[in-house]
């Protein structure tokens, strides 16, 4: 037992001695899935370029629409509040199925809309809207970014073809981290 104590004392000293330097961290104790996903969406907003025509004014806000049942709650509002990207503020709007999506720059399609995906993607077709989903096959079926959970981490798929159709320019940094998925034959047929 004495030996164990000595070992532990040594460990203590070691850990103290190694302290100090480069000790910054993101304490992820609050690593709720949707807090993290809100962080992803905020990052996507920075790494995607919209065509100038997508905004009425140089300072028009970036509208993040959440379509269907909202899994974020206040988390996403807190992430984007008081933030500006190229002079644009970010605002979050909750939308019901059938609502006009035209004012959105980003549209988060909730998993509650899984059964109506074709309809939703039809209604954003040709508009400069970054569609983000968390539905299996979302990107393959014509959505632009699909968030997935792989093991314990959030990952995402990008459909480059769909981004081009929406006239959005996705940064290479984002693409390098993404899993690139092709548009399915079904998706093409539905165009």
């Amino acid at each position, binding site marked *: *037992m004495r030996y*164990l*104590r000595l*070992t*532990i004392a040594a*460990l203590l000293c*070691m*850990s*103290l001695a*190694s*302290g*100090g330097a*480069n*000790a*910054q*961290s*993101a*304490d*992820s*104790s*609050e*690593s*709720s*899935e*949707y*807090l*993290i996903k*809100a*962080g*992803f969406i*905020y*990052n*996507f907003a920075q*790494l995607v370029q919209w065509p100038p025509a997508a905004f009425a004014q140089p300072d028009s806000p970036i509208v993040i629409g959440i379509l*269907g*049942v*909202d*899994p*974020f*709650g*206040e*988390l996403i509002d*807190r*992430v*984007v509040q008081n933030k500006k990207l190229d002079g644009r503020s970010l605002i979050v709007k909750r939308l019901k199925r059938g609502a006009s999506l035209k004012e959105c720059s980003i549209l988060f399609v*909730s*998993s*509650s809309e*899984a*059964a109506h995906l074709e309809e939703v993607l039809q209604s954003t077709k040709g508009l400069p809207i970054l569609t983000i989903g968390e539905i*299996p096959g979302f990107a393959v079926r014509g959505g632009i970014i699909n968030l997935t*959970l*792989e*093991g*314990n*981490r*959030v*990952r995402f798929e990008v459909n480059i073809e769909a981004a081009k159709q929406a006239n959005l320019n996705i940064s290479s940094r*984002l693409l390098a*981290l993404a899993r690139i998925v092709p548009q399915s034959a079904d998706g093409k047929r539905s165009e």
Partner: protein
Amino acid sequence: MLPIRKQNHGSPTVGRRFLSLTVVGLLLGTGASAQSPQGVPDISHMSIEELMNVEVTSVAKRPQRLADAAAAIFVITQEDIRRSGAASIPEALQMVPGLEVVRIDENKWAIGSRGFNGRFDNKLLVLIDGRSVYTPLFSGVYWNVQDVMLEDVDRIEVIRGPGATLWGANAVDGVINIITKPAQATQGGLVTAEGGTEERTAESVRYGGKLGNSAFYRIYSKYFEWEPSIDATGKAAHDGWNAVRAGFRVDTKSSGPNALTVQGDLYDSDYKETLTIPSLNPPYSSMFANDGDYAGGNLLGRWNHSFSRSSTTLQVYFDRTNVLDNSLFTDHESVYDIDFQHDIHVGESQELVWGMGYRSIQDSNGSSFTVSLQPNHSSLNQFSSFLQDEVSFFDRRLRVTLGSKFEHNDFTGFEFQPNVRVLANIGKNQSVWAATSRAVRTPALTEEGLRLNEAVVPPGAPPFFSPLPVVEAIFGSTQFKSEDLLAYEFGYRVQVAKSVSLDIATFYNNYSNLRSAEPGQPFVEGSPAPTDVVYPFVASNKMGGGTYGVEPFVEWKVLPKWRLLGSYSYLQMDIAKNKNSLDPTADNPDGQSPKHQFFVQSSIDLPKHFEQDLSLRYVDSLPSLNIPSYYSLDFHLGWRPGTHWEFSLVGHDLLNSRHLEFIPEFINTTPTEVQRTVSGRIAWKF
């Protein structure tokens, strides 16, 4: 803290707390729903690369929203632990509705779920980072050695009711899942020091850093010493203890489909107690100050691999426990465990989880006159597999989960533990769930091979009037079978208003083959001298009956900076011996668990980074132990000026100068009284 804030995906707060194992383990660390708005971390400064490294689940299996869990679940977050001022895991568990958490002496606890509480409670499964700490020796938990660096705990998930389909035999009345943060979430240094009346001086150190570019690590060490409590007469008792512990955890960065975790701990704990043991010579019993030691360690590795539509997890661990109590019993136990699990998404509405595992247990023990175990060396093998499928209908508004565990153990052979669970979301703000499950509690080594000499009746004394001393002894039996439970559960959750939510769980448990102690044929024993008569009581399965209860829980955010929680637990136990039982002991365990308990907590964020918490707990009387009911008032005042320092002042049990909480069964150690205590703590992060 409220595990369920709202009833479906649409609620503003739902999704912050998640279940990992279908119905069991909560997945995302988050204290978000439990904490004040400013407590939600600002993650907008994190790059996408950093976000990809954040682990949002820790103990395997697929995520499930807490509000969508068809089980009675409660989550203690890191924030809850911090604000409760809890200094140990049992103290943190005191806030959970439906649990009974009582202290026997400074170093012994009795913790149970939905009845049958005792020091050797055998129906509650406890896991730390996926490692079972349920000892096969007596089918219970050594609570005094189950410790972690509390600051590194991500959350403690508590499931009341059976979790056997996923967790296996012995998850009968509940599962407690203690989950620590991944190493990347504990980077940098932390030093804490604590001191207070009665109890404790405690110090801990943790440091986390990077291992090259591909992994994170942390190492920690902690030491505490608790001073003796007082006995029933108000004198200092012999129940002080201390423990020293150190450990590490390494997690790889998850840039690819693979994630690897390796962690381990070493500990050593010295304890004191007042022990009474029988003797064959006058005065036939002796009470003395006894000292003992617990030491051990564990090492665990977990590898997760993700495919596009499924993921696999392989976990291996080794756990060693040494119990050295030279006046009573020594035990050396080694557990080797390997588990594999595969989660598959089938289409859009079906999720399948299956797994298999093997556990090998090596036990060797040394006896005393009081306690002996046959054989002195044993080796046990357990094989298990499980399959569970969740299918959802109507846009995931209705979910049906069906599954079963299949296990084989050396005592009772094959065990089958199925369950079916249904959850329905009604509108946006309500959900109901119902479940039926079977769980078994498999025999422990002691139930097969124990001999415990409980008492020696002097020659000529009642009730035997024997010319020789009579030893009343409890014997294990190879005939002892598993205890069985059929559980029926029902729950309702509703968001009453934007700031008020309610969660009600009810249950009816039907037990059969519960343990009784049947009188056997007395016999004469010549060794050890002097010659005596042994009056045996043999472990048997002649008890059964029902328990039922209701556990409502309310959370009310009165103001953004003021939160109120309230919970109440009602428990009715109707356990009785079967007609053919001759067990002469009092009828049943009904009177050892409180019928009524409630807990109320107020948490306020004050200006200038102060925070104040006050909680009141009521525990009903325990009639068969003659323990009166009591109220316990706890207080916490914290101050966090900036990010580096935290100061806190904690008061425990402020209403009573002292009170008794429990009287232990089987091993006759003198219970001591819980005293009013005040302590202070400083934490420094760098």
